[in-house]
């Protein structure tokens, strides 16, 4: 499954050159993201990198200052009904009305979506074990996330946007939510965009990974390609190094004396060449996990 080109008409989400500032602070800088139909995109990055800001642009809650945002070929700000009727959203803080009961919230949401599947909603509710008569303000964090997810899934939206769906949840609830997402992806033609700090989840279910750092896209590609484009290696120097060696192309350099661990962005041959240049040899190398890549890039150590 290849990534669509910018002009591809089958992109469900087409963000192009998006830029956004809040006062002096640049929240997003020339961000371009394309999500084809039926794929799962994992949005990763540190807190404050711009993930939620990007998601808010997709929902029309923020207007793009530069660039364009298109969902299903429509602009969310110009046509909120056309876009939002096909999008299911779970926000980071859940943002559910605490005063409503679960069944009231479901009834309220149902009225806006003609595609609402009552049987499916009831199945999900039983599976999530939500008491319909319970007030939302008395639900636990996990139950609130489940309630929000239920409201977003029940009308089978074409695009599901989840902002940190697993944050603050125990492993059992995380499993439930992951399974629900996978079931959706397996259904024909549904697209999912989710942001997460739990990178093992991203590796499991994302086809495509986009990493934001300080508002910029620093990684964008298929999950396996992103991982495959990095090497976690150990370099052995002939002489003990007194200061952290400067290694071109490395995102994290850590170690002591003659042995230094490096997270390198590039193919094996490039690493070998760089190592040879600085008088070190590669004694260990493997493909790093997404977690290691993120932490290394976010740390910003090395060159």
């Amino acid at each position: 499954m290849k990534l669509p080109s910018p002009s591809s008409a089958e992109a469900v989400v087409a963000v192009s050159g998006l830029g956004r500032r809040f006062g002096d602070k640049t929240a997003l800088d020339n961000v371009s993201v394309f999500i084809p139909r039926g794929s799962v995109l994992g949005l990763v990055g540190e807190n404050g990198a711009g993930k939620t800001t990007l998601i808010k642009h997709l929902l029309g809650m923020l207007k793009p200052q530069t660039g364009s945002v298109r969902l299903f070929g429509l602009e969310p700000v110009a046509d909120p009904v056309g876009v939002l009727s096909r999008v299911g959203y779970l926000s980071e803080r859940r943002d559910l009305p605490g005063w409503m009961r679960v069944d009231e919230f479901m009834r309220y949401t149902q009225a806006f979506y003609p595609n609402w599947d009552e049987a499916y909603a009831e199945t999900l509710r039983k599976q999530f074990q939500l008491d319909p008569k319970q007030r939302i303000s008395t639900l636990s964090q996990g139950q609130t996330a489940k309630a929000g997810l239920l409201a977003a899934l029940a009308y089978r939206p074409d695009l599901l946007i989840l902002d940190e769906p697993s944050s603050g949840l125990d492993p059992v609830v995380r499993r439930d939510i992951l399974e629900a997402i996978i079931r959706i992806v397996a259904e024909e033609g549904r697209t999912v965009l989710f942001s997460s700090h739990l990178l093992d989840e991203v590796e499991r279910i994302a086809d495509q990974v986009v990493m934001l750092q300080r508002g910029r896209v620093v990684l964008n590609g298929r999950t396996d390609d992103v991982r495959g484009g990095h090497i976690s290696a150990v370099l052995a120097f002939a002489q003990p190094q007194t200061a952290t060696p400067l290694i071109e192309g490395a995102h994290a350099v850590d170690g002591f004396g003659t042995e230094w661990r490096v997270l390198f962005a590039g193919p094996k041959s490039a690493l070998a060449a760089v190592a040879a240049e600085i008088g070190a040899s590669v004694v260990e190398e493997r493909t790093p996990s997404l977690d290691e890549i993120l932490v290394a890039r976010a740390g910003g150590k090395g060159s």
Partner: protein
Amino acid sequence: MQLRISIDGGAPIYQQIVEQVKRLIAGGRLQPGSDIPPIRVLAEQLRINPNTVARAYLELQREGVIVTRQGSGTVVAESKPTMSRKEKLKILARTADVLLTDASHLDVPLEDVLALVRERDTVLHPEASR
């Protein structure tokens, strides 16, 4: 069919599935003709993206390890896969690369590596060597 995948760095998930399926078949836990779970079921069971499972199945199909029949799902292939010698060697080349890279890091000479390979073969297939 019970598989385990690990996410802490290592081979891509689809590759892990391919290798484990092959290992299960080689070890006899998966008999020729036995059912392979549908993509969706395996994806839910392992909690991974169905596309990844699809990719693994595609690879296994290409290598002739599993066969998809119209209407009756996917099963383990009956006969040995009809792959050309070149294809088979290409698949093994990957594992060989890993072995040789490790060997060069540990500074083990090639002869010792070859001797090791023969030794391990004896251990793994005692009936073949007898």
